[in-house]
């Protein structure tokens, strides 16, 4: 029998992988991939709580859909910023991007 705790453990592990990628990568695109993994972990939690926590409610799935939409916004803006920074500085490695002006 698969319980809510199983889903929460998987979600915690995916979150940990995403956190490690976001903290340890030098490339901004790879950091963004880590953030996507973390958002997915949060979504697993939302959908699992929707099934196990609150019977008959839909708010968990609604919230997961909103999070997916905002993740798409975040990816679009983040990748646009990375492209703009690459045009200006010719690098996507965040430890080389340390100027606020040029």
């Amino acid at each position: 029998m698969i319980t809510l705790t199983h889903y929460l453990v998987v979600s915690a592990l995916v979150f940990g992988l995403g956190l490690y990628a976001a903290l340890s990568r030098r490339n901004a695109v790879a950091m963004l991939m880590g953030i996507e993994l973390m958002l997915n972990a949060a979504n697993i939690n939302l959908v699992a709580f929707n099934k196990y926590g609150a019977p008959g409610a839909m708010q968990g799935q609604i919230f997961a859909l909103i999070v997916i939409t905002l993740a798409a916004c975040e990816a679009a803006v983040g990748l646009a910023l990375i492209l703009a920074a690459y045009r200006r500085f010719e690098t996507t490695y965040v430890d080389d991007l340390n100027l606020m002006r040029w």
Partner: protein
Amino acid sequence: MTGEAIAFYVLAAITLAAGAVVATSPNLMHSAVALIPALLGVTGLYVLLNAEFVAGIQVLIYAGGITVLILFVIMLTEGGTGLRIRQRNEQAAIAAAVAAATVALLIAVAGRTPWAHEPGALPSYTPGAIGQSFLGPNLPLFEGTSVVLLVALVGALLIARKETGE
């Protein structure tokens, strides 16, 4: 072992193995391509949780849209695929410790909290219930999200456009 349990463990293994490749592969192209099975594994978990509409949206937006966008940006910027470039910063050990501590805390909390162990009764047709909710009590949320989406995409276009001579 029931079919649900087998499906759960297979999907969890796919998600976690692909997620490990995403987090640790020295080749960024491999990372970005491994993101696809990771997101599809999460999609399978959604189907197991009776969230078919969320699963469909996940395939369309994440596996189909965001991954392709990430692949394009990796190929448009140089240095992402070079195997000789160092891909981890100096804080990688600290990052691993922080991530492990966070996971341990989350698992401890999830294991000790007394949850309701029986799955609740969902509507038999969840996309219909989601649609009713989006055009009913959640209408302001729906409209607000659409405005945010518009503003974010116009902003992304503005930031990423090629600057011509000023």
